[in-house]
């Protein structure tokens, strides 16, 4: 295809288009593709950020999986943040409930976001959350406290060599980030 009669202008136009396409490629291909791949392959310990709808209720009583919970605060996050139990033993296919506690020791209203990570990362795609406080941001009034629910199902297809799964939450302070967005709404 010729974009111009002048061969030089033709070359320049095509190469200019290539550089514009490559710039767009970063935003519209690389970023979504990375997120989709992490989501689909369950790599990077990322669990799905949407609620899971259970497909079958068959519980595999023959296997017992130890699930450990870790709660961490990101830099500068003053909240108290802890799981109700640090460890529970569950069967694949069964729905399990647990709670996390959060308390805001400051006098100001704050908003937090918990980011999950599963280890070993191979287990992430078998760790289904039907309900999680991490799906939404958590606002707390000054000196407020909250119990935050988590309901999850371990997939029956979990590879047999995985006996222990660790679910870690890091709590981030997103107050300033969200305030701008709310104001602009």
């Amino acid at each position: 295809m010729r974009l111009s009669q002048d061969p030089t202008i033709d070359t320049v136009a095509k190469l200019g288009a290539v550089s514009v396409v490559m710039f767009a490629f970063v935003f519209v291909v690389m970023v979504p593709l990375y997120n989709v791949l992490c989501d689909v392959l369950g790599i990077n310990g990322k669990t799905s950020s949407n609620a899971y709808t259970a497909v079958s209720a068959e519980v595999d009583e023959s296997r017992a999986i130890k699930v450990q919970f870790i709660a961490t605060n990101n830099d500068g996050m003053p909240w108290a943040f802890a799981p109700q139990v640090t460890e529970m033993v569950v069967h694949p296919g069964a729905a399990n409930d647990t709670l996390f506690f959060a308390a805001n020791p400051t006098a100001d209203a704050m908003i937090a976001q918990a980011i999950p990570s599963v280890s070993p990362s191979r287990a992430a795609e078998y760790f289904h959350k039907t309900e999680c406080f991490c799906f939404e941001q958590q606002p707390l009034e000054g000196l407020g406290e909250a119990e935050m629910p988590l309901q999850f199902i371990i997939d029956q297809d979990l590879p047999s060599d995985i006996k222990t799964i660790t679910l870690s939450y890091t709590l981030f302070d997103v107050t300033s980030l969200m305030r701008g967005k709310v104001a602009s709404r």
Partner: protein
Amino acid sequence: MGDHHHGPAKGLSRWLYTTNHKDIGTMYLWFSFAMFLLGGAFAMIIRAELFQPGMQLVEPAFFNQMTTLHGLIMVFGAIMPSFVGLANWLIPMMIGAPDMALPRMNNWSFWILPPAFLMLASTLLMEGGAPAFGWTFYAPLSTTYAPPSVTFFIFAIHILGVSSIMGSINIIATVMNMRAPGMSYMKMPLFVWTWLITAFLLVAVMPVLAGAVTMMLMDIHFGTSFFSAAGGGDPVLFQHIFWFFGHPEVYIIILPAFGVISQIIPAFSRKPLFGYASMVYATAAIAFLSFIVWAHHMYTVGMPVAGELFFMYATMLIAVPTGVKVFNWVTTMWRGAMTFETPMLFSIGFLVLFTIGGFTGLMLSIAPADFQYHDTYFVVAHFHYVMVAGAVFSMTAAIYFWLPKWTGRMYNETMGKVHFWVSFIGFNITFFPQHFVGLAGMPRRIPDYALQFADFNMMSSIGAFIYGASQLLFLYNVIAAIVSGERVSDEKVWDGAEGLEWTLPSPPPYHTFETPPKIEEQPAH
């Protein structure tokens, strides 16, 4: 047009408004040498601090600014513009074209560079200091924890990205449309070939770098969360984007160097280059592979085993075309009537030291071993063997080789040879011991170190001062040659040199090949 020949305009406006490829090439070369000295001065500060363990001269924060700016200025300010300068001077003369295809854009590509680097250097004087997150500027160090000056750094990267893209488009347009009749692609000198491929790499990946810094800008100022886990982003994504640019970038730096060596070794071996076609295909193969190996820079981020294996094997595959090149250069020298003038010495130095750097690269490509080497001085030693002994040595060889053609005056050969030996020895004293401290676990980018590394670090620092000082000798030799060097009467300054640029007078007139030259049947490489 007819017989109307005119020389350059007078005074400062000649340089400001020039559209002449020779003038612009000269400006690129001087600018990159100035940046080389600035980045070198930062390296001297780094080595002075590391001369002894403990904190001696500078604050840790300032040390980090030095490592960051040293890397950025050397990669983007010294090496890349120097090869663009070489391309400007040589490509039209090598393919029989009167000038570059887009002379006005050429002027613009150069003149936006000095402000960009002035802005980058000025961050040193800003509150919070210059960027201190390493030249790879990994998020969140370069976003959440960055000093306020990061915005100026981002803008500087944008400008030099635009400059590189315009320069590359110009080179491709020149090579594709302005070759003299009869100069087919497979008759082009290898320097032109390597630059053509490099220019395609630049057009493909500089926009990716621009995208990465744009995302940083948006994360810092506009509330997006590309690289912030709190908002659903991922800092590891930054590393993928950066190295998708960064790995082709290292070939952008080294491919023109390969081209230079492929011109010089045949000239001083008085034999045509061995395996011309295989050199072209090897260059293209390296360029292709550069797009599918980026994650070997990030083996330790927690990739799945399948990913580690893929990137490991793909990386090892690069040794094949690179080996083709090294063997072709060695075979070119085999049974040649060799002489060892300064350009040839630097080329052989390049060949030996670049091969060492290639081997350490192969060691680093082994994923399980890399967990030990990652972010240690072993990596620092590796990439200085390929960047300094590779790109900078070949650039130095190119200056000595073509300076008599450009200026019509000869440099001082004895001083050139002294420069080579002092550089060669100084370079090896600096970087060879870094392999050992790296393998023993000394991390990079840290201003202090454990006592057992003291001797090797002192050695490294002494070598760095020697290498740094030898560059002043180079500067003196070049200036002395321009001002009062012995005049060169021949068109062919070197009796073994082949190619169209050696059919022109020395120095070449301001405008050359306004009528295309006749290309002989023999390939001109």
